[in-house]
């Protein structure tokens, strides 16, 4: 039997002393969380404020006579220009459409892979991870290689040049965003599906409901929080994306806010007020979405995992699994194998213009990447090291923060989750510039030994700041599925907060922590804007090197470096996942979670 509780509905008949004790505990927990929130604000809030603040304090970092003089003119100018309004509308339009399509695809993919015993599962299940592993700018470049009028698909006669030209439009952007972002909803919905076993659906089935009615009346309502979270997370992702904004959107003349910020800051002198104003607009959009989500879900959230859950229902082995596998393979081909083939094709060819002709094939690019002691090798190894440190630190900080926030109650949880989702949308380029301003210009921050501008320590700090929101979302979502009764039972048994976190909470959410670790690890290896701006003096990390190579007509070498990096990162992450997953025994299939 499963215990289902709803927050906010539990305390109606409680006695006053109990309420006071609970209130006191919450205040204590909130007090304990404050130092960690201060770190969160230092990592994200202050750098962001230095950039956004310049929309109304334009002389804050002026070279001559810097001042705090308030002047809203840059903000008014940014809001009143035609292109700014157009970028805002374009960003909203693309964000909403792509959030809907990617959530629909991701949720569908998760449901199909969880609920059907699919043939060729090994080809289907890892696809969201592999798509997620591929950075946005590489996906964009791959689709440009495929779809440009003289690109691979036209060269192979798959599509005519006019169709290729039509791809560079809102439709093409939505198409690539959908295929690029569907892993995020697939992870969130997949985790939610794994969280609630099969009892409720089984009960509905025994009550004579059809499969469609069960899905509509039971599964969908249970998935609603995960779907809402997916919509907001993907909306935020689309708004903050730069890879597609700078390639397909730029070619399609579909101006987006992130590209507007980029054009303001990639110049000498920087137009910081314009960048700040556009970043402010972007942040307001995300916060509005988060606020709307909180308003819609005021009734609270279902707590579904308790100590007495039964196993999830076994996947269907009916005849439908074959066409379902076919659909999943089509998605996998479009989202992963085709872009990967474009990158691989370019990695193994000498020139772009001579296409996929046999005479054009070469292994020179791969040989160059694999040669020891080259810049590519150094960047590759450095990025893996940075990613490892970042993933360890970010998942650890997020775990501690999430556990304390969870203990403090729904109010703080909602605020932190909102803040985390809001900060996901901050373009890395804004955060990167904020880091330069704080750690190289702001009195009191320059000259710190750790982090220090120009050294890997600040780059890693920037990476941690950029990944912390993701880690928090993943871990808080998993914690949100735990029944408070488990923690309460451990507390009544005399265990302290850290012992409860280690012995009760952590084992139950270990997969989520591991997910957060691997997500951070992968994202950090390929993180571009922060890497570009906080590039350490000792040498370039991987992403700026790849982009530099692309910019310098070295597509083949850049593609080879990307291909090998993706294979290596995927191999490391996949091996870790398989090993650790085998070590974790959650009693699924035995009905025992103790």
């Amino acid at each position, binding site marked *: 039997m499963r215990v289902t509780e709803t927050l906010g509905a539990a305390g109606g008949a409680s006695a006053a002393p109990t309420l006071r004790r609970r209130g006191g505990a919450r205040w204590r927990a909130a007090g304990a969380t404050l130092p960690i929130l201060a770190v969160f604000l230092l990592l994200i809030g202050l750098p962001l404020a230095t950039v956004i603040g310049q929309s109304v304090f334009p002389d804050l970092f002026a*070279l001559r006579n810097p001042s705090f003089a308030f002047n809203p003119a840059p903000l008014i100018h940014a809001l009143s220009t035609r292109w700014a309004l157009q970028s805002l509308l374009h960003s909203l339009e693309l964000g909403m459409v792509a959030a809907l399509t990617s959530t629909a695809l991701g949720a569908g993919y998760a449901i199909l892979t969880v609920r059907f015993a699919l043939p060729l599962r090994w080809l289907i299940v890892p696809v969201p991870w592999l798509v997620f592993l591929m950075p946005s700018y590489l996906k964009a470049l791959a689709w440009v290689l495929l779809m440009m*009028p003289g690109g691979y698909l036209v060269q192979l006669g798959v599509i005519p040049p006019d169709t290729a030209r039509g791809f*560079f439009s809102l439709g093409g952007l939505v198409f690539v965003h959908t295929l690029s972002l569907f892993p995020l909803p697939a992870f969130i919905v997949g985790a939610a599906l794994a969280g609630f076993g099969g009892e409720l659906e089984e009960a509905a089935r025994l009550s004579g409901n059809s499969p469609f009615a069960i899905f509509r009346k039971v599964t969908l309502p249970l998935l609603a929080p995960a779907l809402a979270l997916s919509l907001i997370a993907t909306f935020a992702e689309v708004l903050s994306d730069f890879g597609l904004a700078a390639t397909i959107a*730029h070619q399609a003349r579909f101006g987006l806010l992130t590209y507007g910020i980029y054009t303001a800051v990639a110049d000498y002198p*920087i137009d910081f007020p314009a960048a700040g104003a556009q970043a402010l607009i972007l942040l307001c959009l995300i916060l509005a979405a988060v606020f709307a989500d909180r308003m819609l879900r005021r009734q609270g959230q279902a707590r579904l995992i308790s100590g007495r859950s039964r196993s999830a229902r076994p996947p269907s082995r009916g005849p439908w699994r074959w066409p379902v596998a076919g659909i999943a393979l089509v998605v996998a081909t479009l989202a992963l194998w085709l872009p990967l083939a474009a990158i691989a094709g370019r990695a193994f060819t000498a020139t772009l213009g001579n296409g996929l002709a046999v005479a054009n094939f070469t292994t020179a690019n791969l040989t160059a990447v694999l040669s020891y002691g080259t810049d590519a090798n150094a960047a590759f190894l450095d990025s893996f090291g940075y990613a490892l440190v970042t993933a360890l630190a970010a998942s*650890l900080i997020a775990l501690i923060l999430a556990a304390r926030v969870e203990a403090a109650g729904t109010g703080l949880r909602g605020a932190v989750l909102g803040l985390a989702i809001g900060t996901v949308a901050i373009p890395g380029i804004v955060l990167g510039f904020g880091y330069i301003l704080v750690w190289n210009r702001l009195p009191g921050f320059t000259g710190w030994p*750790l982090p220090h501008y120009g*050294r890997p*320590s600040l780059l890693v700090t920037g990476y941690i700041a950029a990944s912390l929101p993701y880690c928090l979302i993943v871990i808080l979502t998993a914690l949100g599925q735990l029944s408070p009764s488990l923690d309460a039972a451990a507390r009544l048994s005399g265990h302290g907060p850290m012992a409860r976190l280690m012995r009760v909470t952590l084992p139950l959410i270990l997969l989520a922590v591991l997910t957060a670790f691997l997500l951070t690890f992968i994202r950090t290896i390929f993180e571009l804007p922060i890497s*570009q701006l906080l590039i350490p003096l000792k040498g370039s990390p991987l992403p700026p090197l790849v982009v530099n190579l692309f910019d310098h007509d070295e597509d083949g070498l850049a593609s080879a470096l990307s291909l090998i990096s993706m294979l290596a990162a995927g191999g490391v992450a996949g091996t870790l996942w398989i090993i650790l997953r085998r070590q974790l025994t959650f009693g699924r299939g035995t009905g025992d979670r103790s």
Partner: protein
Amino acid sequence: MKTWKITALATVLASAAALPAMADIVMYDKLDFAKDVAAAFTKKTGIKVDVVQPGSTGELLGKIAAEGDNPQFDVVWVDGSAVLTRMLENGVVRPVPEKILKQVPFTKLGESLIPANHAFIPTGASTTAIEVGSKKVAKADWPHGWADLARFKGAVAAKDPNFSGPAYQWLAGLFQTNGVEGGKKLLQEVLTSKSLASFSSGGKINKAILTGDAKIGINQDSSIIAKMRKGEPVQVIYPKEGSVALPEGLAISAKSKHMAEVEKFIAFVFSKEGQAAQSGGDDTDMYYIPVVKGIKAKGDRPTDINFIQLDDKAAAAHETAWKQWYRDTFVR
């Protein structure tokens, strides 16, 4: 509890282990050969050089602008002179000392590229030329001047001067030869496809010609020549109106505390070993025009180009306005 402490300690130690030793000189650059030159210099002198290369020239300049009055570089080495002049005006770089300039046996072209304010020392040159997709345009139809590009309107690719130093140099040169209004009118006639008019690098122009919709490009000649040498179907044409020489400028940070090392580095750049390191590979910038007597250009790279002298002062004075016009007209 113990596990947490061990994990936290391991994290801090791992971060601390990532701290590198400081080099003697920090160089920000956007030139293909800069790393090779730095490596050769270190090998010869033992002086270490950290080379920082962010993305495009725009991104590099944005980084320098964000660092403001606390620049972290000792030398900056980029294409284009106007932006370095602005940096001098803002006190980000210092004038190159006369004694350094006098030590270099400049060619006539090299001497012509030395700015009056000594904002930088020219180490080489290139120019902006017309790039023709030779599979797309019959030889009889090849353009020979900027005005001829009107025949290819909608199929001409260009770089956004807001991202590219060389592109701004070209824009300023075009306004100098055609007059500002004449230049603007010509560009509005030619660059009718906005999606082709705002690339951030020469590589993207090449791509647009080789596999995209562009037939013609306005591109740095070294980028076109590097592609030709790799067998790509493109051709370089120098406009009959003349071309503005684009210096590769090396400037010194106003806050550098390593002037002795910087002077040695600059001397090395103009030495035979330094010049050899600048042309040792096949990358775009390695096809530069030498500005030192006795040094020959790589391969059969053309050097007898009809150069015109850019008015650096005017280019620097109008930089913001002209870049803004380009952005408003062709980018947004």
